[in-house]
């Protein structure tokens, strides 16, 4: 599936619950094989949004920050009820994509069966697939507020293929 309906483009949330609700809203638009790249400063709500997203996908286990172990895995369910493996990455402690590639992350990022949620994805731009969801989170003036921007990103080659496909 090449183009996607983006559930929201820019939202401002004023509580962790509202940030989780945005994650839940995005969850309904996801398919197996999707990757969500999350960017944003410390404390901007990345893990919080992922918690809401995972809960909406039926994850019952704890969803917490995998900063120390790099990857958490959860068993989720698609809306239809089929099982969905969710991999939650946190690249905060990593120094660059080379090292990440060596532990086989490229295979995870391109696995058509599972869902990848990647915090600090801006550290590995060259490892991201040709099409992915981008979530950018930032602090606003009011300490409780967060801006959340959501985009469906396609690399030029993927965008070109999509354009050709739609002409046909």
């Amino acid at each position: 599936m090449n183009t996607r309906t983006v559930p929201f483009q820019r939202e401002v949330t004023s509580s962790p619950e509202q940030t989780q609700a945005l994650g839940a809203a995005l969850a309904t638009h996801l398919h197996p094989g999707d990757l969500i790249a999350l960017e944003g400063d410390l404390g901007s709500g990345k893990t919080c949004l992922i918690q809401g997203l995972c809960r909406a996908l039926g994850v019952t286990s704890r969803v917490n920050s995998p900063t120390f172990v790099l990857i958490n895995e959860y068993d989720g369910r698609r809306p239809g009820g089929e099982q969905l493996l969710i991999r939650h990455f946190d690249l905060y402690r990593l120094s660059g994509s080379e090292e990440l590639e060596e532990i086989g992350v490229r295979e995870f990022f391109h696995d058509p069966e599972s869902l990848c949620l990647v915090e600090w994805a801006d550290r590995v731009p060259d490892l991201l697939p040709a099409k992915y969801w981008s979530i950018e989170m930032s602090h606003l003036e009011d300490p409780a507020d967060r801006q959340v921007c959501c985009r469906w990103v396609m690399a030029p080659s993927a965008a070109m293929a999509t354009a050709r496909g739609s002409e046909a």
Partner: protein
Amino acid sequence: MLILGIESSCDETAAAIASSERSVRASAVLSQMDHAPYGGVVPELASRAHIRAALPVIENALDQTGARLRDLSAIAVTQGPGLVGSLLVGVNLAKGLAYGTGLPVLGVHHLEAHLFSALIDSDLEPPFVALLVSGGHTELILVHALGDYELLGATLDDAAGEAFDKVAKLLDLLPPGQLVMGGRAVSASAEHGDPTTIRFPRALSGRDTLDMSFSGLKTSVLTYVNSLRNEGGQEALTAATPDIAACFEQAVVDVLIDRTMRALKSRCIDRVALVGGVAANRRLRETLAEAAETIGARLTVPSIALCTDNAAMVAAVGAHQFAQGSGGGRVDEGYDLDASPRLSLPGLQASRPA
């Protein structure tokens, strides 16, 4: 009985020899400094460093006891959770040594090893409540008996040690690029600060839960740091850093103590153990000791060397397993053992009604 324990779940390569779950004869640790120039953990480098360090560390542990491989009863190794590449080095080395010597291999859970660290050289007996705090973990576990654990509470987001690391970065207390070992830097700065000047939030306090949350605290520190820098510039921030560090540390300690005390009271347990790398924090140790005393509970804190990742605690779990017969003593036992980055704690149950 002599058990060799091998630990390689994250940054430390370690080996130790135990003669029982409470008696460790030798322990050797090599901490990896290779990451520092890269500004973060480098999984592949970690694996390579483990490979280089593992055999010398094992030889060192054996030399300390005068024992040889043939004198051992079994080989215990951390099976998970942890970084997969790092775990694989230890697990495969253990299996290789086992194959060559005919000894059984025993897989050990990293958290169970931390729980056992409280038993080494101590007379602590279950039931006890363990507060396990480290870079990757923050858990309150009721040890009903060895092998029978109940999870009373845990962090809902960041681990306590992770919060220390991130606040160290926010406060510029770490050398450029370094992202770990922040606890020590924050505590050192906090020594010069006043822990009563800023009231950072204690999340979930006053609620009927033993769970914890440190993400909001981290964010609150970030907000404070940013507004201070905007208003008074870097100079004002530098001047206030010891106070911020002290107030942050106090907030973490308050949350940990509150949950631990409520766990002890609600379960009528009078023994508590503080384990994991964050147990090295002086304010936490001292405050918990005082709080435990007020309710007549006895606090056990292993030595710092047993709190940070080490193999003594792995060998101790191995000794317990072997004595319990789970090693089986059969030569082929354990060869199918695999590294398991997300291993769940055997014998762990969710919270039961009090």
